[in-house]
């Protein structure tokens, strides 16, 4: 527990870590409404993307762009409402891992678009 000088008695701390996110050490700021709001917004963003794809009102490029924007918004919602990015007391590791996660997400999406467009040979 080198990272938790503030909980000295808690050597095994298995329990503490198991519960850290719920109530043992960091009391969550706020009520279930935060979560419900996040949940509803996420669903709305997802259904929005689905509807746009089914409705086919835009050209492929425009559609991709709009869906990507909705996706980025949703990442923000998840980070803020569920992952509590803003509340971590010691963010060093979190920032590294978050950065790596963003990088991998970018790679997966950008390369998949690159790969699956087959050099423009495959029109959607």
């Amino acid at each position, binding site marked *: *527990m*080198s*990272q*938790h000088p503030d909980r000295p*008695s*808690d*050597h*095994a*701390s*298995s*329990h*503490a*870590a*198991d*519960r850290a996110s*719920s109530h043992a050490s960091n009391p969550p700021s706020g009520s279930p409404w935060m979560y419900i709001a996040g949940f509803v917004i996420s669903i709305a963003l997802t259904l929005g993307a689905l509807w746009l794809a089914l409705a086919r009102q835009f050209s492929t490029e425009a559609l991709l762009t709009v869906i990507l924007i909705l996706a980025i918004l949703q990442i923000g919602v998840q980070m803020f409402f569920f992952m509590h990015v803003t509340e971590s007391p010691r963010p060093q*590791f979190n920032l590294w*891992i978050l950065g*790596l*996660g963003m990088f*991998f997400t970018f*790679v*997966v999406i950008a*390369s*998949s678009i*690159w*790969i*699956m467009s*087959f*050099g423009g*040979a495959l029109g*959607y």
Partner: protein
Amino acid sequence: MPTLLPHFPATFIVTGNPLIYGAEVSIVLATVGILFVLTYFKKWRWLWREWLTTVDHKKIAVMYLIAALLMFFRGGVDAMLMRTQLMQPNMHFLQAEHYNQIFTTHGTIMILFMAMPFIFAMFNIAVPLQIGARDVAFPYLNAVSFWLYFFAALLFNLSFVIGGSPDAGWVSYPPLAGLEFDPGPGENFYLLSLQITGIGSMATGINFMVTILKMRAPGMTLMRMPLFSWSVLASSILIIFAFPVLTVALALLLVDRLAGAHFFTMLQGGNPMMYVNLFWIWGHPEVYIVILPAFGIFSEVVSTFSGKRIFGYSSMVASLMTISVISYLLWVHHFYTMGAGPGVNSFFAVATMSVGIPTGVKVFNWLFTMYRGRIRLTVPMLWAIAFIPIFAIGGATGVMLAAAPADYQYHNSFFLIAHFHQVLIGGTVFGMLAGMYYWWPKMFGYMLNERIGRWAFWLFNGGFYVTFLPQYLLGLMGMTRRMYTYPADMGWNALNFISTIGAYVMGVGFIVLVLDVVYSIRYGERDVTGDPWNGRTLEWSLPSPAPHYNFARIPTVTSRDAWWTGKQARAKGDAPAPPEPLQPIHMPKNSGGPFILAVIFFIGGFGLVFNWYVLGLLALLGILVNLLLRSLDYDTDYYVPIEEIEHTEATLRRA
């Protein structure tokens, strides 16, 4: 029945094949036998209290190890069947359909139900002890991971006798794996059991990342951490970022199959190639997920049995971390032939070749560690040394495959088969066997027999070359993978025959390995010191097996190879610091929750395999209730009193 269980297939129990009848009879007999033994010896309570409800990482490690060895056996039998069928041209040992099922289950079992639990066994036994922790960060979740894996493996293996095995390859590409060409429940077994075990793997990745980042003993900075723990960190990062993609790919295919969606069909605007892309975004990191811990074990073993600290520690760490990032960026090399274009293929070809650089650094560091070391050729060390030439060849052929234009020739030939067995067996399997021999005394308190272990090693290692080197040539001669038989005039007969003989030798090697375990259970040398190998890292400072709370006092670490430097100082006559007073130890309570949760997952998965949505929904409800009950349960931990610690320590050290 009809309303509750629509689509009840006429062929629920698989029939019509002597092998399967044999399996059905033996499954029934084995089940009855196990139930009888448990009841007769009144072991039910013991089983429940000591194993099924445990949250102790050391016991979970033992269960992972047993499961991995069992699955190794099942996958190995599949391999023997395939090699027997290919021994000679025009064999009629297996039908085409049956061969398809066997190569599918072989690949899936070896990767997901053998290699994964094997690395998790090593994670669990070594990481908390090496970093001076009393358990993993989330012990309850750790048990959830294990039981999800266990019941997923059960679900997958059940397909052999109920419903029929999957048969679209371990990659399960649509359209072949889609409803149109594969209507039976076999593919559903594949999809659902992989989903369930995938949840468990993801949780394990998170668990060990948090454990390593947050629960190191005071003074153990990251740059003092043993290399095995570093490799687990690298592997966990890959798990966390790769497995979600597999989940998505499998879920979309499942929706296609169960609900008639068209993500991966050719009609209705779907595109099966997207599945291939998603599968390998997971699939390539997956091979590094299983090889990195093996690298970590080789580092521990080579340094211990050379009597030297590892050469180039920081470059070892740097290459592990580099590999874990680069290996995420290579996946297209599995489908160059899909034809995404020269730009895409060249980019991924160059990226793929570049991963050879950090890997090469590691190989040289192991060699330099051995150089002028005082080498002890124990069984773990034999596996580690034998790994190096095999991995060198496997790496070289890998770079050949990475050259995109050339790969149009090699792809899906036996050249590829030889390549990946070379790295998976020579790397992961050798690494896990090295780790098993190395940590066995820590897990069980006695050593595995070295003499029998050597026999197993030489048979398996020798058989390996005989099996797989001819397959390179067969590949170059045009033999493609997944063909169930071949005509006599291709010039392939001799090489195939040799390869099959080699496979039998490996099979004998495996049997000798099992004999070693059985023999050592009775006659194995007791490990009374807790440090049988003259080790360097903290796990060897504890008695074998370690008490359930691991460390009576959490050690304070002042250097790399902490246990070794401590021993050196004591040998020089430095008196050890007087022990601090004991304190009550805070530990998690056992719980039946994880086991029950996994049983419900199993039931739900089984229901969905046969499109029994009612069962699926009931199970979903059960899962939610289980999770809810757990989050309302506050009675999850207790303190081990000082007297009990004193007593335990006295008994253990007295031995």
